[in-house]
């Protein structure tokens, strides 16, 4: 992360007026002008007009604002946009597969893993981060590692079931791919 190119110079005092920064957002380069105090979630919603990412508590307790920064799940309410200059950002708007919805989104629908849907973008981004990390094997692990995302409608059991299903499917697919590779080689 530290090697990334920054739009602005190091060791130069910036602000309190706006500063020009750049991020790759869902695969596209985006430029924006923010004052130093703008949080990433405010930049996403108010400057980039991506309203899928939600503000719940605005201080890192609920997880509704979860996004992937350089592939890692983070609270976008607890980071300053200016510090993410040069970063790769993924929000719920960038989650899809070639044929439409991402498998995790489909699994959320199939398992009834939401009611009001307010926390769902954060749950999906957090679930994607969890699968990428690869530390969760059991339902108990998933519960523990999804504990940063609250659901006021308490769809927790279905959220865990959806994530486990996609994770197991991905594992089976990669095993199948590995087997095919063996056959081909």
């Amino acid at each position: 992360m530290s090697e990334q190119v920054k739009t602005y110079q190091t060791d130069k005092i910036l602000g309190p007026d706006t500063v020009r920064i750049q991020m790759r957002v869902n695969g596209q380069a985006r430029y924006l002008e923010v004052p130093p105090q703008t949080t990433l979630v405010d930049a996403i919603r108010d400057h980039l007009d991506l309203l899928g990412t939600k503000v719940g508590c605005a201080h890192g307790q609920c997880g509704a604002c979860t996004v992937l920064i350089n592939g890692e799940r983070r609270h976008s309410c607890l980071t300053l946009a200016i510090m993410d200059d040069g970063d790769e950002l993924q929000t719920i708007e960038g989650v899809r597969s070639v044929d439409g919805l991402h498998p995790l989104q489909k699994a959320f629908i199939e398992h009834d893993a939401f009611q009001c849907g307010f926390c769902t973008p954060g749950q999906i981004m957090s679930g994607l981060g969890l699968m990428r990390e690869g530390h969760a094997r059991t339902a108990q692990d998933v519960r523990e590692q999804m504990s940063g995302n609250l659901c006021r409608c308490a769809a927790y059991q279905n959220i865990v079931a959806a994530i486990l299903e996609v994770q197991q499917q991905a594992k089976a697919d990669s095993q199948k791919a590995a087997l095919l590779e063996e056959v081909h080689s």
Partner: protein
Amino acid sequence: MSFQFVRASNAAAAARFKSSSDGAMFIAGGSGVVDLLSQNVIRPSLLIDLTGLSNRGIDLTPQGALCVGALTTMAQLAWHENVMTDYPVLMQALLSGATPQVHHAASIGGNLLQKTRCTYYRNSGFACNKRNPGSGCDARSGFNAGHAIFGASEHCIAVHPSDLAVALLALNAEITLEGRNGKRSLPMDDLLRLPGDTPHLESSLAQDELIVSVEIPRLSRNTRSAYSKVDEHNSFSFAVVSVAAVVEIQNGLVSNARLAAGGVAPKPWRLASTEAAILHNELNEKTIENAALAAIQGAIALAHNAHKVELLKRTVTGILTQLAGHQS
């Protein structure tokens, strides 16, 4: 809330910016600082971004110690191969607090210097000597169930919230600082200060200093370690009481022991009397009972936190019983 911002290119530049103004503050992962900014608890004039510094990552020293760069995240340390196999106390402490989202943001240096979760500190409607020196302490006469039973003063009764700091004290870690005059190292026990009559001065760092690394000694093969935390819920809650224990057992006897408690004092609290009570003894029921009683010597309960005294005794009993069971 508006402030200036600078991304420091190295530790010397960061130190120079920090000493340029009383209103200058460091920021790394942001999970602590941005939260306090948005609640108007802190009002810096200049934020110094440390994330461009190179002290990130974990190396093994020639002596087999772990040298952890201060910008390493909690997640990187908790899931590091050597930590998972050799330092259960460290992995358990890191994962017992916060959430995965915070683990990916929060730096090791920032974790150690994080601000107290005392409600009276975090709500600017209350008097707090930490936030506003000389204004008084509303926690003393308020609801103080979460406050200190050791090391408090009439000016401040807040506890330090870090689980990591408790584990690092039990592991006898050494903290390296860098400032305008170069580097110096100090033991974990000397990093944080007791409040006395200056509760706003929380650490031993000079105005221009920052934490650059943490060195965690290699443990002998006969060492067992664990972290036990009592909290109100399993995720994203701070310790009511926690205990980190690092105990070496040879030929059935304790040959080395370091224990520290969290949630009970303004800094991680070394349980020296407990260590003395088990050293050179077999970890049997009688020894453990004596050790648990030793842990609560000198505890002073406030109006609402007497339960912490009993909880500390039970947590020490539990963790030592657990470690005794590991004897082969």
